[in-house]
């Protein structure tokens, strides 16, 4: 079986969520099938500037075929078009222009996919909202699997995407919340889909002491890993943390790992270490009391899964329904909505050793049951096997939705995406299993 993994950026030095997700999946599926990666020459996700040379190169043993990007993103044009389609009634043509301005616009990539559709058994597209996934998945719909990596943002409310979600052969969701949102927005219930998520390369023995010695950190700390950005909720995290300093557990600091886009407050309890290697990151997770995830929008938090894999509890932003749902389902983390809840949950997790250990142990079990690589690989293989069986038996009837006409594309009758988004269900998806509760032993004593 030959598979093509199609993603907007690809490289060993790219650590973006969806891109890393794609690399991990490609590398693990390569153990079971022939995998080739199709991507662009871009490295920067803001401008999509061509940085890698076009052509084929090998990344961690996998062939990666890169195609140049037609034009860089004009952020002003993109902002204007985003405003139009997200906030105002608009036309289908406006949405097509929006996705063109969003990029990474690479017509050679789409041409290659169309021309070589039979060279691959299946195409696995990552990130529905980008140009390559929208045009690529439509051009080879009968061979395409889509990993949407959809967050709860306005893009899901655009009308150009539901036909894509309905036409692909299969969908690999990251979370039950993402599946519910997409199925409600696009009415694609009949498309095979499974909640898969992503595993991580967890080292066998991370060393907390090594991290403490290397960075001179001796006390207890809560850890944040990721881009330090307002969009990731870091501003709110800083505000909550600084306001709560007098009420925080004694000696509990906040350690930040990642590139900073946001100014970091100068406070003795806050320490920024910059971008670290994977080894240091896992050492830091092992040394931390807990992981803080302040992000509002996540389709899946890999670093939360990594923390759980290492037996560390997670304190998540309750406004992010995915993280909140994961905390509840895994029983491995708490969440906060307000300043007071931030303080109390932080104190509960940091101060109560038994709670901390119980959450951590649950996290390890949750990771092993749902996100360990054998589980992830098997879900992909099962889905591929299902598609292959349908192809052999010719049981799958592909339906191609007709593209609107010239006038219909220009008619400004589509509602603002924010309105559509507001109508979608929200909140965590809680699976109500009879065996899931354990009331006799779950008693807490405050």
């Amino acid at each position, binding site marked *: 079986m030959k598979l093509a993994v199609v993603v907007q950026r690809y490289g060993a030095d790219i650590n973006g969520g969806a891109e890393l997700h794609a690399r991990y999946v490609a590398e693990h599926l390569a153990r079971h099938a022939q995998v080739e990666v199709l991507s662009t020459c871009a490295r920067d996700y803001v401008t999509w500037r061509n940085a890698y040379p076009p052509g084929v190169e090998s990344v961690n043993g996998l062939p990666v075929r890169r195609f140049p990007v037609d034009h860089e993103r004009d952020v002003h044009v993109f902002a204007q078009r985003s405003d139009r389609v997200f906030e105002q009634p608009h036309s289908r043509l406006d949405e097509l222009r929006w996705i063109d301005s969003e990029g990474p616009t690479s017509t050679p990539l789409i041409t290659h996919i169309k021309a070589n559709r039979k060279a691959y058994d299946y195409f696995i597209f990552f990130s529905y909202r980008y140009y390559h996934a929208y045009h690529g998945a439509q051009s080879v719909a009968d061979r395409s699997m889509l990993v949407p990596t959809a967050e709860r943002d306005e893009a899901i409310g655009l009308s150009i995407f539901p036909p894509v979600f309905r036409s692909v052969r299969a969908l690999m969701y990251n979370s039950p919340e993402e599946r519910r949102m997409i199925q409600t927005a696009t009415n694609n219930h009949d498309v095979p889909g499974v909640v898969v998520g992503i595993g991580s390369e967890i080292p066998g023995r991370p060393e907390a002491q090594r991290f403490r010695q290397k960075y001179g950190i001796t006390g207890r700390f809560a850890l944040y890993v990721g881009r330090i950005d307002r969009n990731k909720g870091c501003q709110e995290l800083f505000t909550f943390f600084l306001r709560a300093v007098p009420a925080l557990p004694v000696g509990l600091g906040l350690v930040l790992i990642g590139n900073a886009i946001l100014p970091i407050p100068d406070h003795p309890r806050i320490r920024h270490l910059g971008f670290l290697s994977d080894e240091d990151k896992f050492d830091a997770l092992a040394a931390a009391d807990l992981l803080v995830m302040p992000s509002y929008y996540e389709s899946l938090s890999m670093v939360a899964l990594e923390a759980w894999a290492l037996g560390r509890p997670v304190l998540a932003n309750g406004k992010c329904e995915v993280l909140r749902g994961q905390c509840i389902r895994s029983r491995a983390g708490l969440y906060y909505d307000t300043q007071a809840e931030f303080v109390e*949950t932080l104190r*509960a997790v940091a101060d109560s050793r038994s709670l901390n250990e119980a959450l951590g142990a649950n996290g390890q079990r949750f990771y092993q049951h749902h996100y360990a690589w054998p589980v992830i690989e098997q879900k992909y293989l099962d889905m591929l096997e299902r598609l292959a069986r349908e192809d052999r038996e010719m049981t799958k009837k592909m339906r191609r939705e007709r593209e609107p006409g010239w006038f219909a594309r220009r008619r400004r009758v589509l509602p603002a995406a924010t309105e559509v988004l507001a109508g979608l269900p929200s909140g965590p998806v809680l699976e109500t299993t009879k065996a899931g509760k354990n009331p006799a032993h779950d008693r807490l004593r405050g």
Partner: protein
Amino acid sequence: MAEFNIRTDAVDVEQIMRQIRARIREKRGVDYTEQQIQELATVKLERFLDPKGVRSDLVEQFRRTRTATPEPPKYTFEDSTIYDTHRGLLRFMRRLLNPILKLLFNPNPLIHVIHTQAQINSLYAQQFRVRDELDALYYEVIHNLVLELTRLGIENKNLKMRLESLASRLDFDERRSRALEGVVQYRSGTAAAREERPRVMESAPLPVEGLSAAAAPSTPGTLGTADGTARRRRRRRRGRRGGAGHAPGAGASPGTPGTTPEAGGAAGAGTGGPAPDDAPGGGMPTAAATQGRSNGPMDNAASSVPLNIDVAERGPQRGSRVGDPDEGPDDTSDL
């Protein structure tokens, strides 16, 4: 914060979150949102504390503003407005040439539109003004409501604390009295009882008014025997404590049987110069006044004990020891 005690590793996160939220509600009293708390935090303290911040005629003004009639338009635009001028000749010329002007174009729709627009402008201006006033009043109403609620919440909390404090003090007093009742062995008519009892009562007065009368009459010469004597002695002491320590009650003939309480009280007031509330009332000052002077500074816990008990306890002891009504310095040292 109390420690969570997880018995097993099967944790119900939602249950924990419910507990945490309940705790937050307990701490705050009311489950305000962050925004509400921010708004409350920005409220001026003087508005918060000053009852004048609440306007007494708020409701009246509110009604008046709601029913206010719209003001007339600030300007009018009639069909003759465009020809108006204070110069008579010019006005005449304009009128004269008006047909020519109307030959070139029809100004009537223009005039009509501007006239209507003037009315609309006035109407909107009026509505905006009313809206602004209403908004301010709405704000004030809500603002004051929030303040009042907050104040009541704080007051409620204070009262709860005070109630708890009083309950604990009452409990303490009850236990104390029970303990003392167990200790005191009173035997009527014995010298041991006379000697022992005042000592005990000095430290812990018993709430029995008749006790002084019961204990005193048995030894007339020593203990003052008469009720009036005990009262006089008490009043003199008060007078000394309140003012100078010298020969105070002499003018009131201390120790003279039959001296009225009113006279003694007046004498005490005159010599010692205590607080004015003691002077006119005469013999039995108020409990509060007595507390303040007799044993207020010494024992707060005993401050609620009635005055007459204290007097009854101290009278026999002093009488047995000195027998002289003018033992000022000793009385003072007694305190």
